[in-house]
């Protein structure tokens, strides 16, 4: 691999854009494709264009074949991100766990007593309102959003932005009752049922979590299952 190609790949990654390295298995020759170039020529009429589109959609690396030969597609998707409102007890456990699982974590809470560096060492902590932070971060399809403040004044502002985004996971803390009231507010704000159904609530996989750390495990597990949903569906289809 040329160092310049490796550099181009890493630049795309840092800019949160997907890219693919196409390796000719027979010769070792390589080509580089940025996602936005796929709809342009010469890529749009490339014999591999369908395989490349599939690879971008699933984020999965793999072999592709055409009559001309065999290619390996190395897919580079941006780092997954978890954006959390609420510098609360659960977040103190969730932030390091999610970081180990490979998420870039940002925690947003305008209440500076909560959002203190002492409570959150080594975390990208934003003691600001969600609408001051989220638009510049950008919730893309590689982003998970988690609402944990228990305070509608803060969580609703962020949920409004999350529901208008491509985030692959949206979870909100609160009992069924709390969530029912949230649903009413979101309806009043103009969101339809399909949009509201994107919110996982009560948040987290049902593992009987009790402590804040256990709830963090259930949230992280649910976010991972959303991230890998397509992979799981493909595997299930293959087994059937």
């Amino acid at each position, binding site marked *: *691999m040329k160092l310049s190609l490796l*550099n181009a790949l890493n630049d795309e990654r840092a800019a949160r854009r997907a890219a693919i390295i196409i390796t000719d*298995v027979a010769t070792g020759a390589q080509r580089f494709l940025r996602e936005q170039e796929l709809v342009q020529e010469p890529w749009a009429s490339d014999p591999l264009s369908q395989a490349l589109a599939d690879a971008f959609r699933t984020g*999965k690396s793999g072999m592709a074949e055409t009559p001309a030969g065999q290619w*390996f597609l*190395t897919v580079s998707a941006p780092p997954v991100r978890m954006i959390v409102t609420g510098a609360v007890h659960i977040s103190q456990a969730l932030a390091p766990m999610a970081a180990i699982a490979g998420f870039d974590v940002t925690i947003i809470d305008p209440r500076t007593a909560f959002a203190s560096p002492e409570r959150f060492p080594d975390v990208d902590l934003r003691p600001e309102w969600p609408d001051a932070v989220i638009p510049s971060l950008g919730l893309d399809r590689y982003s998970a959003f988690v609402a944990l403040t228990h305070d509608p004044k803060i969580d609703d502002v962020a949920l409004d932005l999350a529901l208008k985004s491509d985030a692959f996971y949206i979870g909100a803390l609160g009992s069924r009752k709390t969530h029912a009231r949230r649903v009413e507010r979101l309806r009043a704000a103009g969101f339809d049922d399909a949009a509201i159904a994107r919110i996982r609530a009560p948040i987290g996989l049902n593992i009987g979590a009790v402590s804040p750390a256990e709830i963090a495990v259930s949230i992280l597990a649910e976010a991972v299952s959303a991230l890998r949903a397509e992979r799981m569906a493909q595997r299930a289809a293959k087994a059937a």
Partner: protein
Amino acid sequence: MIVTEDNILAEAERWAREGRKVAIATVVETWGSAPRPVGSHLVIDGEGNFLGSVSGGCVEGAVVTEALDVIAAGAPKMLEFGVADETAWRAGLSCGGRIRVYVEKVD
């Protein structure tokens, strides 16, 4: 330090810019139960230092040895590992799967 797939190729670039000789090994195909998915990387330098994983530990030693050859010779190599051959005692996958690993030099 836990190196995720997210930053391993950034590390490969950093190593290469430091003037180290670098090879990248990539899992390109798997059959049966394989410990690491297609697209997983192992990055190796000319001293045999490595980051990442292509098999969760089973065949990393053999991949590193081959990578040193690739760094010396320059041409890429396709490796295959499984339990179905008699060298399995040396470099095999205890899980019973088979993997193909592509090893290339960064130049």
